[in-house]
Each structure stands twice: as C-alpha cells, then as structure tokens.
C-alpha cells in the first residue's frame, strides 16, 4: 500500500524527526505519526513498528519523558515531552544533519557533475 511518492527514512533520522515534533509541545504517539506525515506533505509515513520502539528508546535515553493525560478524544493517552537533555540532543543532531546534507550536497553537485 505504499504511496510511490513516499520516501524511506535513512537510518537514525526517525529519532531526529520525533525529537523535532515533540519539541513543539507534549504530544502522543499517534499524533507524532500524523504530524510527521503532515509536515512532510505526505512524503513520509512512519510505521508503528518503528515509531514506538524509537519512542521507547528515546524515553530510555532520557531525551523524552512521558505522562498519561486525557487526549482530545477524552481517552487517556501517553504524552511525550522533551527534556533538557533531549533539547540539547535535538540541537546537536539538527546541526550535524544540516552539515551532513550540506556536505553530501556539495559532493553530489561537485564541479565535475558527472552524476549519470
């Protein structure tokens, strides 16, 4: 059922995206998936099979904390928040992502440009 426009996430970037989304305010897992999909203009669809393990991993590393609160539908849901440590991690990772893309871009569009 994969939309041909959808992209596969490079290894390790999901964590960064989650941190970015959670940085906007307390949010539960389902909403994180929705938000990533929205923000990527439907290009990225996060599979639950990788979302939840990633959330738990980030929680375990203390980048996120979670508490149970009523959701918009009134049901109790697990809301994740960014910790100070998580914010720092987000900044670092964003910076290195930016550098990485810049460098990769540089190489790919190099003077030779023989990309065929």
């Amino acid at each position: 059922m994969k939309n041909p426009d959808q992209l596969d996430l490079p290894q390790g970037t999901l964590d960064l995206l989650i941190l970015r989304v959670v940085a906007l305010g307390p949010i539960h897992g389902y909403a994180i998936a929705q938000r990533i999909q929205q923000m990527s203009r439907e290009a990225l669809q996060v599979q639950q099979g990788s979302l939840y393990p990633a959330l738990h991993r980030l929680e375990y590393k203390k980048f996120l904390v979670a508490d149970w609160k009523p959701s918009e539908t009134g049901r109790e849901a697990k809301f994740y928040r960014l910790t100070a440590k998580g914010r720092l991690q987000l900044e670092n990772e964003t910076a290195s992502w930016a550098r990485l893309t810049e460098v990769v871009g540089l190489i790919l569009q190099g003077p030779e440009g023989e990309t065929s």
Partner: protein
Amino acid sequence: MNWFQRVFTGKRMEKELDSELRFHLEQQVADKVRAGMTEDEARRTTRLEFGGIAQIKEDCRESRGTLWVASVLQDLRFALRQLRNSPGFAITAILTLSLGIGASSAIFNVIDAVLLQPLPYADQDRLVYPLMIARTGDTLPSSYLSYLDVRAQQRSFDALAGYSMFGRVNLEGPSGPVALSAVKSTDNFFDVFGVKPLLGRTYLPGEDQPGKDNVVVLSYEVWQSSFGGRADVGGKDVQLDGTPYTVIGVMPAGFRFPLEAREAVYTPLHMNPVWAKARGMHWMRTVGRLKQGASNEQARTDLNRVMANLARAYPEQEAGHTVARLLPLDVAANSLDRFGKRTLAGPLGTLALAVLALLAIACVNVAGLLMARGIKREREMALRSAVGASRGRLMRQLVNESLVLCCAGLLGGVLVGWAVLKAMNVFLVQAMSRGADIHLNLAVVAVAAALSLLASLLASLSPAIRLSGADPNRALRAGSAGAGIGRSQHRLRSAFVITQVALSLVLLVVSGLLLKNLQGLLHTNLGIDTAKILTTRLDLSKGHYAGRDPIATFYNPLLEKIAHLPGVQGAGVIDVLPVQGWGDGYGIHITGQPPYPPNLDMGAETRFVSAGYFDAMGLQLTGGRLLSPSLDKAENPAGTMVVNQAFQHKFFPTGGDPVGAHIDDAPKAELKSGIVGVVTNVRQALREPQMAEMDWLMDEIDPKDRMQNLNSMALIVRSNGDLSALVPALRSAVHEIDPTVPFKTPETMSDVVSESLTLDRLEGWLFGIFAALALLLAIVGLYGLVNHEVELRTREIGIRMALGSTRMQVTKLLLGKVALLMLSGLAVGWMLTLALRRVLSSVVEMHASHDFLVLASVTAGLALVGILASLIPARRAASVEPVQALRTE
C-alpha cells in the same frame, strides 16, 4: 529508575505499553471511519497496516534496557511453569543430573584430597623413605647404630631422621586415660618436614638422648581434644604412660607424620638400651629430605656407598644390605604395598572413569529427555515464531529452561555429593592414609558442576537450535508432532541408548567382578569361627608397671576373671592379632637339617601368647601338647613353642615330626628352643598365603623385659552367647584390675576381617552403586525412547492394524527394534570392556574362564532388564485401537 526497579515495575510498563498501542490503533480506526470507511473495514485495514502487535511490543521492550533481565526473569518464571506442568519429565531430569553431579563431585573430592592436594610438608618432592633390603629381598628397617653411621657419612640429605611407631601411648587426661599414637623419633625429625610448630618449639639437637628426652610435641588434634586448644600448654607437665613429659610445642593443623598417625604425639626415641647398642636389631624406619638438586638416584648411590662401607666394617651384621629404592613420600602416601608399586592412583583413576561414565550417561539421558520434549513442543515453538518471537529469543528461552534444570540438578548434586562423602567417611578414613582429609571441597564441586552444566547446555542446545529454526508454516500445517522431523532425532537418541547400555555394561562387569572377589575374600577360610570371637586391644601404661610384672599383676588376673564370666568359653591374649597384622618374624633353621639355600625364604612368624590363646581362638592341637607355664621350663630351659601346620609343611615337607625338634637360635644345644606341639592354622593376612608361625608363651620373657614386649596385647574372648552383651562385663573386668587402661569397645573377628578389606569394600560398593545407577538411567533412557517411538508412530500402528496386523506383530516390531538396540549396546560395551581391560586391571582382573558365570549373567541380566523396560510401552502400542488412532489425526 535503575534496572532493578524496572524489573519489578515491569508489570505496569507492560500495561502502559499495551494501552499506548491500543490508543494508537483506536485513533487510526476512528480516523478511517471519519474518512468514510465502515467500522469493520477500518479495523481490518488498520490491523494490516499495523503489523504484529506482539512484535512491536517486543521491539519496544528491547529498545529499553530492561529486556535482558526482564526476559530472563520472564523465561525463568515460564520455565518453572513449564516444568511444573510436566513433573515427570522435570523430576527425572533433575534426579538424573543430581545423581551424575553428586556422584562425580564426591569421587573428584576424594581424588583431590588424596592424590592432588600436596602433603602437609614443605618441599614434598624432596622427601623420601630409604627402603633397605636384605639379601633375601625382604625389606629391612635400620638398626640404631647403622642409622647413626649413615647419618654421619651420607652426603645427599639435608636431614635423615629415624623414627618408630611403637603403637600407642596413654595420656592421662582429665577424663581418664586416652590412647594416642606415639611417634618416636631422632632429634632431627622435624627438620625433615620443614614445618614450623604452631606454638613453642620442636626438638633441640641432642634432645633424643636419655635424660633430656622427656619432652613431647603435640599434634594439633591432640592439642584440641585433650588440651582444649589452650595457648598456655607449652611447658606443662603431662603423664604419658605414667611418666612425666614436658610439652614443648604444638604442630599446626594438618601436619601428620606418618599419615596414618591420627591423634598423635611426638616424642624423642626413648629406646630400649639394648636396641641402642645392637647393630643386629633392625627396628627403626628412616625418612629424609634430599639436598636441593640431589636426584633420587644420586642419593641412592650415595647411601649404598655408605652401606658398602658398613658392610666392610661390620661384615657379620651389615653385609648384603642395600638400599633398593628411595620411595618418594607422595607415592608412599597412596601406596597399597610396601614398595609403592600398587598405589591408590590406579583404583581412584578407574573410579574417576566410572564416575565420568555415569555423568556421561546422565547427560545423555537428559539430552534425550530434552529432545523428546522438544519434538512434542515443535508446534508450540512454531506458534511462538509465527507471532513474532525471534530465533534468538526462542533459543534463549529453551536454554533457560535447561538452565533451570541444571541449577536444580546442581543443588541436588551438592546434596548427593555431601551425603555420599558422609556415608563413605568411615570407609575413607580406614582405607586411605589421607582419608581423614576428605571434605566436600566447593572448588571441586564447582568443577564437577561446570562440567555437567556445560554438558547439559550442549545437550539442550541441539534441540534448541533445531526447534528455534523450525519453519512455522510447515510445523503448523503438518498438524501432528512432525513425525518426519523426529526421525533424525530418533537416530541420535538410539545412539544415546546404545551408549548408555554399553557404559552400563562396563560398570556392571567391573562391579560384578569386584563384588565376587570381595565375597571370596570375606569368606576366606581363616581357620577360625570369626563370628564367635570378640577382640580388643589392651594398652598398658609403662609408668604404672615400672618394677611390676604385667603378667602377674594384669594379664593373669584379667584372663582369670574373664574366663569366669557367664558364656565365656575361652580367653587369651596375643601380641599380633591374626588378619590385622603380620610380618613379625625371622629366618630360622631346624637343628639337624641341612643348610637351606641362601635365597630361599625360610622364615616363620613369631607371636607371644597366653596359655589360653589357642582355646580362645578355637585352634585344635594336632600333635604334641599345648604350651603350659608349669611344664615348659622343665622340658626346655631355653624356650618352648607351639608351631602351626603351615610350619610343619614348610620345614618338614617329607613328613618328619616337628614335636621334639629344636631351632638353631643359640649355639649351644641346651639353649636351643624346642617345639612341643602343632596346632591348626589361622590366617595371618587375608591376601597372603598361610604363613608358618611359632607361638611362644609370654611367660617365657624375662620379667624385667616383659613390659617392653607385652605393653600392647590383643585380648581374645570366645563365647557361644550374645557377644555384645559381654562388653560391659569386659569393661568392668579391665577397669577393676587397672583403671588406667583405656577400654576400647571390642569387635568381633568378622569386623576385623571386613576392616582389613575396607578399600575392597569401598571399591565394590562404589562400583556397585554406580553400576546400579547407570542401569537405572539406561532403563529410563530406553523406556523413554520406546515410549516416544510409540507416540510418534501411533498413526502408523493404527494403519498397520487396520490393514490386518495383529497385536502380536506390532509388539514384535517394536521389541525387535529394542533387541537390536540392546544387542548393539552390549556389543559396544564388550568391546569397550576389552579395550579398557588394562586400565580396569588396577581394580579387578578379568579371567574369562573363571569369571564366565558372572560375565554371562551380567550381560544376560542387562539384556533382560532392557527388554522388560520396553515391554510396557510396547504393550501400549499393541493396545492401540486403529479407529481411534486414525481419528486423532
């Protein structure tokens, strides 16, 4: 939260994880419904998109550090539950492992304590016993004078000490006299062993000379038992055999020399002055510490150089004496004979093999059980892997289950090992000079445990690997427990059963032969009725008999008193108790006979007895008369003796009459000792042929020398009635006459016989037990295999019977298979036995002709037991109802 808390908050975490995922699912469904799907369709597509929930959960758990501990605990709980669900399997496996681990750790403990642990001396590899032999090849102790010469002239020893262990010494303690071992030695005795005393000092040079020599060094045991371990014991005066001694030191725990000397005190020599001056009196044993770097052979050459000097200087007394061997102490410690040619290493090594065989059987059995169980659980595993358990995860679970079994088996094994050592303790102390040092050593248990842990892990790994790799699709579809997949496993298990039967056969053969030999030895015809004779050793304190005649003041009144006790048929004393001791004799020549060839052993044992000894022992007179205090002196002023029939055969082979003959023990005819009677034989030693013996009346000893020779005598009492009822009367009889004599509880001669066979009994019992266990385990293995075969083939059997097979044919089919297994097992077992023949010969010799009955019955018995064990499942197979068997599929 640390991991510990996490493990215990695991339940909450699980619940939260579940609600979190459920929430997501519900949201997604709700969104889809909002987008226009029907509720059902929304649920279905969401499920599909979502994938395996269990898998996601497991990944979530894994991404938190909890997984390892949590899943181990979970597995443990699960494993325990699984085992509870099949108690038969669990109990069998745990018992099997316990027995294997227990038996092997017990035996390895014995080996460790007896063979591997160093002796309690410094530089044990430099300590040797010089073994001197006479021209005839007999071993010969040293005389004091030649010892002094050797000590002065040798160049290869740091210290060469002389010692004697003339039995017991009585220590007057607060709670009556205690009999202790007395080790009497030259002043340099402790220099040999290089062990410092725990308290005080050891002997000073020259302290073995009369006048300075009333000093005693206590062993740690005696210090503890008789002095309560008090630190102020040094300088104290104590009474040894009624003579005052000063305690100068205490040796540390563990120091013992000789190793048999338990509860020992060490004193200087205290020689009989006659022995000190007589070069012909060979009574002192020697032990020495080689100089650093001196080889055994160099030292032996050095000692023989000195012996040659002595032979030149004193040709009459010293010629022909050579040092045949310097026996290292560690070899001697486990020696079963005087030359260290047969040592405990042989029997213990064989026992180790036996116990390893047992352990192997146990492990093979557990592996077989696990495999059978694995085949039954194939479906369960397939299901687990279908719902997302990874292969590693499944394997871990299976290995964990075996670990639980192993741990339980280990606990059981420690218990079994402890119990086995406890039960063998008395045996061990008697059978081995270091037997008292054997305790359950945790290091050894750990090794045995590691060994069996490894073995059972390996055993569980192969089914684990196979099971975890089971293709869920196929296993689930195949429906029944996959009979096809079971085949290769089945072949492996058949191999297991063959191994078990083969090893059991070897153990059964060895134990059968051992027990047969033991029975033979126990029922050796000794020439006496061992069940009717009670005996105990009487140790007199020398100090109490200074200037007193022990015969007139102790033995005669005591024997008189005992003879009048109700039920007593005879009472007597002898210095060397038959069966218990021998070797106290010398070469003789019968007056008037031609000289004997020099290399022929023409010796006879000598004993001092009381007049009533022969009646008490139940020996019959076959010629002449018995010894009598009143007649003897008149007839033979020099000495009178009674000889046994073996003496008659040895010295009068052509039929002359020994009665009236004399031996050349003095140059003048009127001083030669004469023979007045011949009595029936009593065996001196179980393993030696009957020896010639000369019995002298103890009254013939000069009264002033009596205490020297008669301070320790074996009392012999013969009764028709209840022997144990006699004991209190004997005790009061002894104590009425001399309260300072320690009364040791008498035993029957039968007890003496079985004590002298301790090692044989130990071997017999251990091999017997191992063989029985091996047999039991082999039966369990065989039963399990056949049972399993029947389970796997229920369908096939059903079809066969539906097609017209009779129950008889089905039974035959199965029993035929069993017979094939048993035959292969027996064949392999026999090949193994024959191949191991040389190794086994250190324990038991096998003679096909003479042991045929034992060998054949053991083999047949094993085969029969195997067939019987498989009869039950085979009958079950035969009772399969074809319709039902086909319907269960």
